[in-house]
């Protein structure tokens, strides 16, 4: 090991991108952004991904292989925020710049830098929005969560509750189910939640596919008009759903920016040897066409102009 980064003098410098999965538009966009940016900055992009969300082993293998291939820097969306840390350390010890995208490692300073959405804030925004939009109506909440043990999911969930102003375990949350961020699982979860508590009137969803699943289930019950769905992501499909009123509001994040900034930072490192550091908030914007007072938001025209996927 060691010194992998030194044998690339003759070829174009390489940058690696490791995403959680290869089966999610969010990461596809991220990869596309990285590809463009790599070209613009004269880098060669290598990419890899886990086989499922939470697949730490594959990400470790990818880091090792990229170091062996002599990359200058690695951009990673950690599947397991703690479990990836030792492998990142090895890569950094080998002189490779490592930047986390989308999801912080735990501890955050295990990487040189972080370009990410503030996921807690993303949840908080839709929580605040929901609070205002409910206008004092007693809430019966369903939360359609991600999967056990994935921090982005936990952060958004917690942020939502904080923004809505209820503690964890509050009786107003009448139903919670994991959806893996998958549309059909989201639908099944919502159907069963409705069966359990037919008077649900607010649905928090981890992402927009889950939100669309919830919407489909509500529509089948004729409830789509009087239940508020809030979500996170801001993918183009999701923003369109906000535009058509299927989703009330979503927190938009900016994977393209994460990727572009990340590649740029690696390019700088390759040229100047200067390492990026610290946390760069790539921003999160609440998108809705039915804005409420007290919560800052942009409309779907803005959302569509800035969406991904």
């Amino acid at each position, binding site marked *: 090991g060691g010194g992998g980064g030194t044998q690339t003098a003759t070829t174009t410098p390489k940058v690696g991108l490791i995403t959680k999965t*290869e*089966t*999610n*538009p969010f*990461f*596809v966009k991220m990869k596309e952004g990285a590809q463009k940016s790599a070209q613009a900055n004269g880098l060669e992009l290598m990419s890899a991904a886990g086989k*499922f969300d939470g697949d730490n082993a594959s990400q470790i293998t990818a880091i090792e292989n990229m170091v062996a291939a002599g990359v200058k820097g690695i951009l990673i969306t950690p599947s397991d925020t703690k479990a990836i840390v030792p492998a990142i350390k090895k890569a950094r010890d080998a002189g490779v710049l490592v930047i986390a995208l989308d999801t912080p490692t735990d501890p955050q300073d295990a990487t040189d830098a972080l370009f990410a959405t503030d996921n807690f804030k993303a949840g908080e925004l839709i929580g605040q929005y929901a609070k205002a939009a409910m206008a004092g109506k007693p809430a019966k909440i369903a939360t359609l969560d991600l999967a*056990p043990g994935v921090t982005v999911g936990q952060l958004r969930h917690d942020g939502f509750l904080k923004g809505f102003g209820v503690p964890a375990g509050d009786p107003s949350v009448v*139903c*919670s*189910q*994991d959806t893996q961020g*998958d*549309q*059909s699982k989201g*639908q*099944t*979860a919502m*159907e*069963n*939640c409705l*069966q*359990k508590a*037919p008077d649900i009137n607010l649905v928090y969803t981890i992402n927009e*596919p889950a939100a*669309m*699943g919830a919407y*489909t289930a509500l529509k*089948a019950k004729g409830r789509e008009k009087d239940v508020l769905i809030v979500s996170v992501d801001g993918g183009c*499909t999701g923003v*369109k759903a906000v535009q058509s009123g299927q989703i009330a509001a979503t927190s938009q994040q900016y994977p393209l920016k994460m990727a572009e900034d990340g590649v740029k930072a690696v390019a700088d490192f390759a040229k100047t040897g200067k390492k990026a550091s610290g946390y760069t908030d790539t921003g999160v914007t609440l998108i809705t066409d039915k804005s409420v007072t007290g919560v800052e938001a942009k409309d779907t025209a803005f959302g569509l102009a800035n969406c991904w*996927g």
Partner: protein
Amino acid sequence: MAVMEATLPRRLITTPVAGPTIALVLASLFFALNSPQFLTGSNFSLIIQQVMVVGTLAIGQTLIILTAGIDLACGAIMAFGGIVMTKLAVDSGLPPLLAVAAGLAVCAGFGLVNGLLVMKISLPPFIVTLGMLNVVFALTHIYSNEQTITDLPPLLTFLGQTFQIGQTNVTYGSLLTILLFLLFAYLLGSTAWGRHVYALGNSPEVARLTGIRTRRLTVGVYTLAGLVYGIAALLLVSRTGVGDPQAGQTDNLDSITAVVLGGTSLFGGRGLVIGTLVGALIVGVFRNGLQLMGVPSIYQTLITGVLVILAVAVDQLSRRRNR
């Protein structure tokens, strides 16, 4: 010499579906006592909607398992079929009917490839479909470019529409699933083709020597199973209203679970497709019932696991006693 028919009660005990059915009834009773929402028409309609995709996959899986095969790729094939239908209809602007036909054909095509590999080179079905699982999974993601396809034409979501029976909304998809089960129960139970499938599962060589065209039959079974996966794809698309490249990943094993819970032997030649319906319903009832009772999802996984072992164990033990 007197030829007697087995008496009805005896046949009921020896039929492999008795055990699963009793389990289903007991589980339903349990949930009915523990959750007021369980025993309603709308909830049952829901359960059927929730199991119809896996249930339909499991029809194809049953066919293959009856021939002593196994299909680890059925969910992946379905996912690909769903993408083909929706992408052709939406992105390529093909007439919806054609798009659906293309999706069905692609699924049947994968079934055909599986069948040919099993038959021509006599590879173990486990390995063929293990390889296919990877191949089709990758193709789905490459072809879809990870994009979920939305804004489907009505034809693709028609099966998700409902009609009323009494007070209860039932989807056309649920109806289609039930009809498919009946159709295959008929084909397996009352036609020569069905007999040949069982004979093949008992022993390919005996079947061949008896004059059954086993090679054609094998390829036919896999292809037909593929076609059924295509129908499952349509059901999935119409249920979710989108073409989703991520779909079906757990359905490969879930469909096997349904078949096994339904009392069909993994060694081939023994079992009933109606058992598979019961097996799928058992899983659906547990998942729904536990959720209504507020049990976290991870416990549903736990209980499904225990159930699989228990169901087969009880079946095995009761058979031993009956000998």
